[in-house]
């Protein structure tokens, strides 16, 4: 049975068009906000892996690092070249000691649940803020948190004062701007995929402050890819 050529052609064209649309659709969804993981460089001390994680939180990520959402709050990580990268999926070694330094350039928003205002799941249950060892900060002062619920890890991040003279506008923020430095240490266990998030409702304009960047991987949420 010979079908007219135009019917076969039409069918082939239709199938191709559908295939292209499906590819575009699936592609749009996979790259929506996901990012490849950033492998944090590892050193070893006494045979056990040690990692230095340097991250910063900024009030607005800016058009350069996020053309579609320039006003989103975001975490950034410093790579080996000293550049700040907007990547929130970090590859860490298993059973390692991780020293974290957070540079915060954002002002206070306040915690919804005051319980999260004390560091937990970190060495000594304390954090070092601008050189001072603290075991709690006033909850309404919290600017952000770094939390890995699977590890029971919660660290509130101290804010830049509201009347600061030299605040950073858009990321990447150089250390010359007003900022706070928070340091703590935690340990990774066995391999796995652990999410981290911020608990401070800092997304202005979304209900409960938890929409937008707070629900988007690549800004205020991410993964620890422990391998």
């Amino acid at each position, binding site marked *: 049975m010979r079908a007219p050529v135009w019917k076969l052609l039409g069918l082939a064209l239709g199938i191709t068009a559908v295939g292209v649309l499906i590819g575009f659709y699936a592609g749009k969804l996979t790259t929506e906000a996901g990012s490849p993981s950033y492998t944090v460089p590892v050193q070893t001390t006494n045979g056990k892996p040690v990692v230095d994680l340097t991250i910063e939180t900024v009030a607005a990520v800016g058009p350069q690092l996020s053309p579609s959402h320039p006003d989103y709050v975001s975490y950034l990580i410093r790579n080996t070249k000293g550049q700040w990268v907007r990547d929130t999926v970090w590859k860490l070694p298993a059973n390692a000691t991780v020293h974290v330094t957070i540079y915060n350039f954002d002002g*206070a*928003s*306040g915690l*919804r*649940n*005051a*319980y999260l*205002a*004390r560091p*937990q799941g970190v060495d000594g*249950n304390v954090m070092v803020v601008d050189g001072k060892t603290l*075991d*709690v900060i*006033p*909850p*309404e002062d919290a600017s952000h948190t770094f*939390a890995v*619920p*699977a590890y*029971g890890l*919660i660290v509130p991040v101290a804010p830049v004062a509201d009347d600061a003279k030299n605040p950073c506008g858009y990321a990447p923020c150089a250390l010359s701007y007003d900022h706070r430095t928070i340091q703590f240490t935690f340990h990774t266990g066995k391999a796995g995929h652990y*999410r981290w*998030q911020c*608990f*401070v*409702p*800092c997304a*202005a*304009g979304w*209900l*409960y*402050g*938890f929409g937008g960047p*707070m*629900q*988007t*991987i690549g800004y205020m*949420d991410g993964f620890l890819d422990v391998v």
Partner: protein
Amino acid sequence: MSSSSTPTAAQPNHARRVIVAWIVLSLIATPLVAIFLGPAIPPGNASVQASGQTTDNTVMITILTPIICLLLVFFVYALSQFRKERGADLVDGPPLRNHSTVQFLWVGVSAVIVLFLAGFGTYELLQNGAGGGQGPNPIAVPSGSKLQVQVIAQQWEFTYRYPSYGGLETSQLVIPSDTLIELHVTSLDAVHSFWAYQLGIKADANPGVDNVAFLKTKGPRTFDIHCAELCGLWHGYMFSTGRVVPAGQFAAWVKQQQALFASVAQYMPPYATEYYPDPQRRAG
């Protein structure tokens, strides 16, 4: 058009065959289901509520087994016996439009079964709440003194407050064994649901609402806690593990947690059954 092509006298008694086959199959299947399958249906026996659910599931599947057997036998029989012969002329079947006995039996028996199941389920529910959240004014309240534990759901973690220990808040749920517990589940933002799987507890966490559920623990064990209501990005990751521990261990754990809690206790709002944190906080 003629009716059925075979003379009526030579028709085997289809109804009797089906009924006999059904009875035989049910007599075999129902006890097997009641003894082996029913009790194996989760959640198991880790708490009094979970046991109640398992009993309920067993009763239901035992009653439903004969129904399944009937339909199975009927269809296997009908679809094999009453098929039109290949290649034969198309003839009509007998013009059977109704049979009041069959109708009456079907409606009557299904009504009885359904009413029984509703009644039994209500009985099981009113015993001790069956582990479900009953809202701020529960009606199925077990008697006895209860340990109050509040479950605070937020995006995207559960925290727990113990009002009888000075409003102690923790991020791990630890409860004593062989204890009657009154869970108060609430939320700070979106709708979540506290599901302690092995303990057979599920109560939605609504903002501004105190959802009460009762739990009588049995022996020490761990249990999985999942969020069972879509609450945003990390809903799928909102899980953790809780522990039921002997009373002595529980007391020790409380003391340890209180020591850690001391630093933040000054900032905590007093214990309440609902919280209304500012929806926007200091935005921007």
